[in-house]
């Protein structure tokens, strides 16, 4: 089980628009690590 941060009542779900901060880019592994900053729009609820 994961512990959600206080400001996040529900995890981001597919089609939600979010803002992420990129923490690390590893081009050779084709990976970008980032952290969630804000949920801009919840499409999953509107659907």
């Amino acid at each position, binding site marked *: 089980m*994961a512990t959600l941060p206080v400001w996040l009542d529900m995890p981001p779900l597919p089609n939600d*628009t979010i803002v*992420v*901060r*990129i923490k690390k*880019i590893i*081009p050779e592994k084709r990976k970008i690590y980032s952290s969630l900053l804000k949920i801009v729009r919840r499409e999953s609820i509107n659907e």
Partner: protein
Amino acid sequence: MIEELEKQIAWQNINTSEDKNKILTGKAVAIESEKVKLTNSDGKVKEENINCIVVNFKNIKVIIPGKELGIEKEDKKSIRNLIGSEIKFIILESDKLTNTAVASRKKAMDKIKNIQLRKYEKGDIVYAKVISVLSKYVIVECLGFDIKLKITDLEYGYVANLANLYQVGDKIKVLIKDIDEEKNILKISHKETKEDPYKNIRKNYIEGGEYLAKVTGFSDNRCFCFTKSRNRYNGNITCMARYATASK
């Protein structure tokens, strides 16, 4: 009057296809089970139910038996994937009185293969038509072949469901990776016709930068999302965004 004329033209096409192997196209609209009598090699006659696909060709019912579809499996599940797509066929038999015809897709695909395969070589870019979309792969029709393209052949980033990106009937550009007329081999990739967004990743994204993204999937404490750099847009990049701490 016009309807009568259209019907006449449609039957002319059916007859030409039957006599001269002209390839026709129609939309697959249904699956039906037909009872047929088959004669074994020892002379015994037995009745068997055969799954057929029904194609609407200008209001003429064209039946294509499972064996004539030219697909790997002839079960209903595999045939169902073709419903809604435009199917190419050659007429085997027709009956104007009942307004029906029996056709073969396999024969049409073989004819296309014979004509098209010699025209192209490795590295060429051609168009393929999407005939079936599932969540993890799509089936495309290209140069007379039915080819299964997985997510890794289609997109650079993470895709949760291909049905969100592709639709039956879409025409997509594909790169020929391997082609052999004698061995009947055709390998294609759609991904390689697009520029790899990870190639210039450091130009478009910087560490510490904040970007707008759309969530495509999620796991226990992370979500997958793709980001679009507004000013220097260079394709979609999938990244993992952490939103929670995993408890031990």
